[in-house]
């Protein structure tokens, strides 16, 4: 609380974005850094609450009021220390997190919440700028070996925590580059990949060994790995995608978002994609099914590829502008939001369900058939009923399914280790340890698809559990 009355004096400002007409022409990050002075004003809006709901709302338990205060006071070096104390990768969350903290910000009860995320990003950017981010190399090594399978945010966080605790950590990734969904799921314009590379450098110096192209359970037997390491952490994500098994699904032009986005990312990174595999939206009518973040990423990508039109479809009704009665503060506000990709164009259609894909004789997608739906709640269950006579056809050259994920992949790793799943097809665990001793789990693999911030938090907690398992006690923090 740099300024006691800051919240009464200052308004929330919007995060500066590059102008739409400029940014859709390239792949560079849309979000722009805040100049220091206006950012300090934003930090001054923080009320340093007796109960900082933001700090609770953040899975990592970020000490938000404290670094808001430090930023207001221009104490950036202390701010990054405080931020890093709870968050290994503030630049990931600072760019990508939907910021549940802001949803639970107390000021948000009757005003716009504090721009927490922007402050967070500025702190870490400033820290990198000033060269304050250095490897934290442990003084003593424990001689214990930990293998971490899956290099998304959960795996990376766990790896960094354990390496700093003195363990020998190897981080396995089935893909050719480290980073999981952050590498291939997130478009460059949302988070530049250099941020990832920069962290990898630090982690390498701290003693983490990266093993990309290592598909455990396929290329390498998981049990061999288990023998080689004193502990394993499974952090392979919830990569089983939800599909849409309706007539026409097999048509050419219907893709999973997770086929489309990684490829586009590869292109950005300079990889060459064979012409026949290339999915390019240029001059095409694109429909994205699923109104979430992945959907928005598809929209932004399609815009940049020069799509003729982009429409996104969502089965749920359009969210209200303000919190609904049954969605009180400090719960995550289910309200109508506009991502950067939405600003860039396209239509958003709500309360519709895709019934059928139509194609031409060559098996190419031409149209999409949908109906309006109404929600009917019976007991706890939600049913979507077609609205009579609401059938509609949309022109479609490309459809991307961005409908979420259904849980951990069973084949390979999970089966080989004999790890149990729970009823939601996520990996079962107790205090991060699966039913197999010495095998731990973190991130979406046990949570189901979720936010990066959860993944980092769980990676940290799993690291603490592993440290305790290996050493008998631990001082590593366990945020969740």
């Amino acid at each position, binding site marked *: 609380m740099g300024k006691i009355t800051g919240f009464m004096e200052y308004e929330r400002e919007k995060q500066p974005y590059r102008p739409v007409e400029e940014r859709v022409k390239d792949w560079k990050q849309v979000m722009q850094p805040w100049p220091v002075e206006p950012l300090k004003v934003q930090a001054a809006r923080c009320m340093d*609450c007796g*109960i*900082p709901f933001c700090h609770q709302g953040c899975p990592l338990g970020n000490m938000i009021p404290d670094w808001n205060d430090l930023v207001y006071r221009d*104490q950036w070096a202390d701010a990054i*220390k405080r931020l890093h104390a709870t968050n290994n990768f503030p630049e990931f969350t600072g760019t990508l997190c939907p910021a549940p903290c802001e949803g639970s910000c107390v000021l948000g009860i*009757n005003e716009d919440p504090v721009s927490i995320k922007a402050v967070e990003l500025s702190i870490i950017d400033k820290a990198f700028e000033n060269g304050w981010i250095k490897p934290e190399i442990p003084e*003593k090594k424990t001689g214990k070996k930990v293998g971490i399978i899956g290099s998304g945010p959960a795996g990376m966080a766990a790896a960094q925590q354990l390496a700093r605790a003195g363990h020998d950590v190897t981080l396995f990734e089935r893909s050719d580059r480290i980073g999981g969904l952050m590498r291939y799921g997130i478009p460059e314009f949302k988070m530049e990949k250099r941020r990832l590379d920069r962290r990898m450098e630090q982690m390498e110096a701290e003693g983490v060994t990266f093993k990309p192209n290592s598909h455990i359970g396929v290329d390498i037997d998981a049990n061999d790995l288990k023998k080689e390491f004193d502990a394993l952490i499974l952090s392979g994500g919830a990569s089983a995608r939800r599909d849409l098994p309706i007539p026409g699904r097999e048509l050419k032009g219907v893709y999973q978002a997770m086929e489309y986005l990684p490829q586009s990312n590869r292109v950005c990174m300079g990889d060459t994609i064979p012409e026949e595999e290339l999915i390019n939206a240029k001059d095409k009518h694109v429909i994205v099914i699923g109104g979430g973040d992945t959907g928005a990423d598809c929209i932004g990508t399609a815009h940049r590829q020069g799509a003729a039109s982009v429409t996104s479809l969502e089965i749920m009704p359009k969210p209200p502008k303000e919190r609904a009665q049954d969605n009180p*503060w400090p719960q995550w506000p289910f309200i109508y939001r506009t991502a950067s990709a939405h600003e860039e164009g396209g239509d958003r259609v709500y309360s519709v369900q895709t019934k059928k894909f139509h194609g031409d004789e060559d098996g190419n997608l031409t149209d999409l058939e949908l109906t309006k739906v109404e929600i009917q709640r019976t007991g706890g269950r939600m049913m979507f009923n077609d609205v009579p006579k609401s059938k509609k056809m949309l022109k479609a050259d490309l459809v991307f399914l961005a409908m979420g994920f259904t849980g951990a992949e069973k084949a390979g790793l999970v089966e080989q280790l004999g790890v149990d799943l729970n009823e939601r097809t996520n990996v079962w665990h107790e205090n991060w340890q699966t039913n197999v001793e010495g095998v731990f789990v973190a991130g979406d693999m046990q949570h189901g698809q979720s936010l990066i911030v959860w993944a980092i938090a769980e990676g940290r907690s799993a690291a603490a559990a592993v440290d305790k398992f290996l050493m008998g006690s631990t001082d590593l923090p366990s945020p969740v």
Partner: protein
Amino acid sequence: MKQPPKQQGLYDPTTEHDACGLGFVAHMKGQKSHKIVDDALTILRNLIHRGACGCEENTGDGVGILIQKPHKFFKRVCAEINIELPESDSYGAGMVFLPTDPEQSKHCQDIFERIINEEGQSLLGWRDVPTDDSLIGPTAKEGEPTFKQIFIGKNDELDAPAFDRKLYVIRKRVENEIWGSELSERELFYLTSLSYRTFVYKGMLTGSQIEPMFPDLGDPDIESALALVHQRFSTNTFPAWKLAHPFRYVAHNGEINTVRGNANWMRARESLCESELFGDDLEKLFPICIEGGSDSAVFDNVMEFLHMSGRPLPHAVLMMIPEAWSGHETMDDERKAFYEYHATLMEPWDGPASLSFTDGEVIGAVLDRNGLRPSRYYVTHDDFVIMASEVGVLEIAPENVKIKDRLHPGRIFMVDTKQGRIINDEEIKQEFIDEHPYGDWLKKNLMPIENIPTPKNIHGLDTDTLLQRQQAFGYTHEDLKILMAPMAANGMEPTGAMGTDAALAVLSDRSRLLYDYFKQLFAQVTNPPLDGIREELVTQVAITIGPEGNLLKPAAESCRRIKLNSPVITNEELAKIRDVNLPGFKTKTIPILYSVAEGGAGMDKALEDVYVEVDSAIKDGYSYVILSDRGIDENKTGIPALLATAGVHHHLIRNGKRTQIGLVLESGEPREVHHFAVLLGYGVGAVNPYLAFETLGSMIGNGRLPEMEHQKAVANFIKAVNKGLTKIMAKMGISTVQSYCGAQVFEAIGLEKAFVDKYFTWTASRIGGIGMKIVAEEMNMRHHNAFPEREVKEPELEWGGEYQWRRDGEYHLFNPDTVFKLQHATRTGQFEVFKEYTSRVDDQNEHRATLRGMFEFKFADKAIPLDEVEPIENIMKRFSTGAMSYGSISGQAHETLAIAMNRIGGKSNTGEGGENPARFVADANGDLRRSAIKQVASGRFGVTSNYLTNADDIQIKMAQGAKPGEGGQLPGSKVYPWIAEVRGSTPWVDLISPPPHHDIYSIEDLAQLIHDLKNSNPKARIHTKLVAEIGVGTVAAGVAKCHSDVILVSGYDGGTGASPISSLKHAGLPWELGIAESQQVLVMNGLRDRIVLQTDGQLKTGRDVVIAALLGAEEFGFATAPLVVMGCIMMRVCHLNTCPVGVATQNPELTRKFTGQPEFVENFFKFIAEEIREYMAQLGFRTINEMIGQVDKLDTNKAVDHWKAAGLDFSNILYKAELRPGDKYYQVKEQDHGLERSLDVTKLVPLSKAALENKEKVDIILPVLNTDRTVGTILGHNITKRYGAEGLPDDTINIHFNGSAGMSFGAFVPSGITMTLEGDSNDYLGKGLCGGKIIVYPPRHSTFIPEENILVGNVLLYGATSGEAYLRGIAGERFCVRNSGVSAVVEGVGDHGCEYMTGGVAVIIGKTGRNFAAGMSGGEAYVLDEDGDFEIRCNTGMIGLEKIEEQEDVDKVKTLLSNHVQYTQSTVAENILKNWKDYQGKFVKVMPTAYKNVLAAIKRGKEKGLTEEEAIMEAANG
């Protein structure tokens, strides 16, 4: 019950308090007569209202009379039983209380006789004392001893004084032997006195019973030239014959707050005492202080010791109760030297005291430095001196009165019957001052720290290891940010809000410092807290440290000590002490480190080693030891500093060496005010918190303290600690650090009893808890953070989370989850969600936070059907909301609560800020915005007859959970016009609530205020709000005897708008302890069923309420939870006026955001009531009444597996006191307020009928006595009832009284009444005057000069809001205190005049005392300053002094003076008016600065053409 009960349940006999009325009559020339005895007994009868009765009307708390040994009488009656008495000088006599069992009685007599022989004297005989106990009540009878008088003949070898000393030795030996014996009735044995000079009759009697009880007293042969009487008001009703006063030399009214420390220090001093007078007999006198005696008894013990070993009585008095000298503006150096020297011999016995003393020859009285007890005297033309707590206790013809005066703070008044004159204060003191060259002695020996050469080696800042050491000593980010930064920046202790809902130290999962296990005690009811800020002249933080000399033989070297300006010392000062190289000073540093790995055993052993080192240091002639925890490393850490110092302190008390060495602490641990308070309280003399200083250095380095130099930061920090200490001392009523040192005014909570008994001896710890092992474990946790075996993360301080919730910090009951659930449930009316909320709060298995969290219900085998349990409507009547003022919370929030509570039949509380009369009328929809409970707090804001008349309940706030013992301040910026209007003050001007009620300095004063308020509205219930601490049960019993209808016992954790953080956290106890103790003690006393017991303090769920009921509460208050229901999100910034949800702010920008609705609050209470019903069904209770006090339905968690909580023992809380036959565990009877016997009911109201009914003019003439108290108030109430705030036209009812009026004359009298008193009056005249007129002048045929004599008592016009007062004579202390609207003229005032005044006009045409205008934020005073020295006596903190220049002022003063002449025939005023030109320039106008500025700003605004309202709003900007 033959004897007072021992400790049982939560009752602790050491918490007994008493107060009283006292008086004496003496003939100045020593003429003996029986009349003096008779008169003294009359005084007793006229002071009955100052004593009390217990559960029986005919059992008093005790009275007594001390007279000269009635030789004539004894000679005669002894002859009748064949005892031949020699000359009066040659025998001693004593009254002996003996066991009732004849054998035991005989045994005692045998011991007595044997010792008389052994001491070389002879027994002359025993006389059975005739008694008649037929009038006394059963309780008193139960404890009644048998009575014999003993007569002891002097051995011819001795002279009379030596014989008196011998009698003293005999008495002490007999006492020691009998009390140390195995006799079952040994406690009955007692000697009221044993002397050849004086004799005492006393017992557990009322003022009217003593004479019938001891028919001796009626015998005309009983003659004395002096008689000292005392009427006791005890907080309990247990038989205690020997606790009646007078003791051998004194009768005491008041309370010694530091008595524990004083007694400890005395004990430590004994070994150094040597006396030529006693020689080898000296040993026989020890222990001087009788363990288990009352404070007055112990005081008497020491005074007797000092006197018998050679000091004249008044000298002993000056040593023990010195006046406030250090800050005295005008005291000469010699006198200061006298006091300063004696302060090195003995610390003051600090606390309110009006003390009368006599040795049979001189008789005198003294008032403590604060002058908080009333004492008035008359001297008559025929040489009688009559002194008493009140005037009017003895009828004296006005023309016989020569002088009327009062005792002044710190001054002695004494009659020497030998010399046959009054010896005044100056003369008495001068004699002692001249005795020795004290100034020289001090100059040569007492070494101010600044005079010691500065050594080379001073510790600096070690940044490299700072973090590690901070971790080892448990520093948190919060310590830095919330506690230390504001201290260093502003020199002020930080403020917090909304109470505390965090875990008690013993229930916390975190490692907590030992200090956290100690709760500060505070004064309530029996003794007033002080205002250390506004009344700074009585406080002193300077302290001298070092070895003491022989108390009995003062010498120059006795003051060879170091004088510190503050008990907190810098590194430089410590280095000076360490390296001091001067004769008589030698310092040894002793490390207090231990090996962490060895745990509790290692710590224990290390402590023993420290003791050995300290002992040998003393042996080697060192004068100081520094206990130091410097030098911690990966293996070693410091013994908790508090444990080390308290351990050494008590070790040295035990071996009698404590006063041979000065104890200094050098520690990294202490950093908050409370830490220093506990350290000092357990005996350390000076503390060097080096790590705190280094931390400040690093905070400057990293920008946490911008633009600050280290030296300045350290100085500010020390200043803040000292301010905080002053406040902590003041809340206990202690003025000097020297007396606070070692006074142990703490209760331990969560510490093992054996551990406490060993290291913190004589500290209460009633629920057990952790011992050495766990203390070491907690140390270990901190040490581990600092020195981890394996570093896995960037080292960083922990957050803490005590003050602001954090996930890794301390557990709080209100956290994001529970706040959300509570708001959601009550806003949407979902009981299921509410149950989720309560289950989160109640389920403290995982996180323990409260004592109640540890309890379990023993449900009935078979639940009763829910529909048989009484309905929620019945239950909700027992609910109230907490006292939150309009001012601390917004109007919206305040009215929302009121509407909701009125709808459900509960009660809301105004808080202390008054209430807008517009709210007394129902709204169109039937809602009533009136608060049913009207609070009366120390500020008395807006307390008028109309306010009180519109109450269902009137609540006296004695203390507040969040900051018991403290006052408050509403900063000017929050005094919005609408707040000022309701409070009767000026917008934008600070409002101060004093720490004490200035009309409650002791328990009988509370009885008086209760009486006043009952008179102001006879239908209302009168509440007394207390806060839980040890002894609250005893206080509650006393309050019940004061006829309070309701007693509220609050927990320490309750919310608040603003409180120093140390008070928020460290003062008071959870209500579980307070309510259980109150229930137990009330039941034991047979008082429970005449009062309603209420509790509050973080009540949040139905389970909380049920537990409170089972422990004894029948009504329940909620504050924080309803605030949360209305939108509060525990921002904890109430004090900043920035509440972002519009609850605790006045800022219109923010109150706009308030979204609370009465319906939400209704939902909350309905849900709570419903939950209660569910529990009741399971417990098998159909009504709440059935449930009250049924503690056996509670159990403690069977298996406590918490590492700390495992040692807790709740059996004391769950103790069920046995009912007396016919009694109940809950209220069934009404208190007898006795209003029907009052002058108002019997005379004034009937005589005023025409005025009341038809507004006709009425004239009444009546006599008045001091026993007629609160005259005019019921009449006023009757006017208000009919005519509202407006009252009747001025002078409609004119009443002329003749005589001495009792206390609270004209209290709360509204417009239309004019009360003229020809005579004089006691304290509290015109209290709460709200429109009426009061005129007092001496009887027309008096012979004394009115303007030179006292006319009216202390604390006049307290909280008065409008009206006039004209007083032809001098008023006592605190004239016009917190006046907010009355115009008054008086001809002289005592100390603290116009204190805290916020409005009105005072014209003073006579002498003024010291500290005038302290805390005066409004109104004006015009003071005639003939000697031109007024400024010295004025506290200019908030005011400016001006000349009278404006015509407006001239007119104002002249008008008031003309009125004064007209009403009182004042010749003084007449003369001034006649010679106005000469006098105008001699008047000083006292004008509060902020007030003046605001008035000027408003005026400017209006001149600019703004409306009044706009001008006021704009004045906010100055």
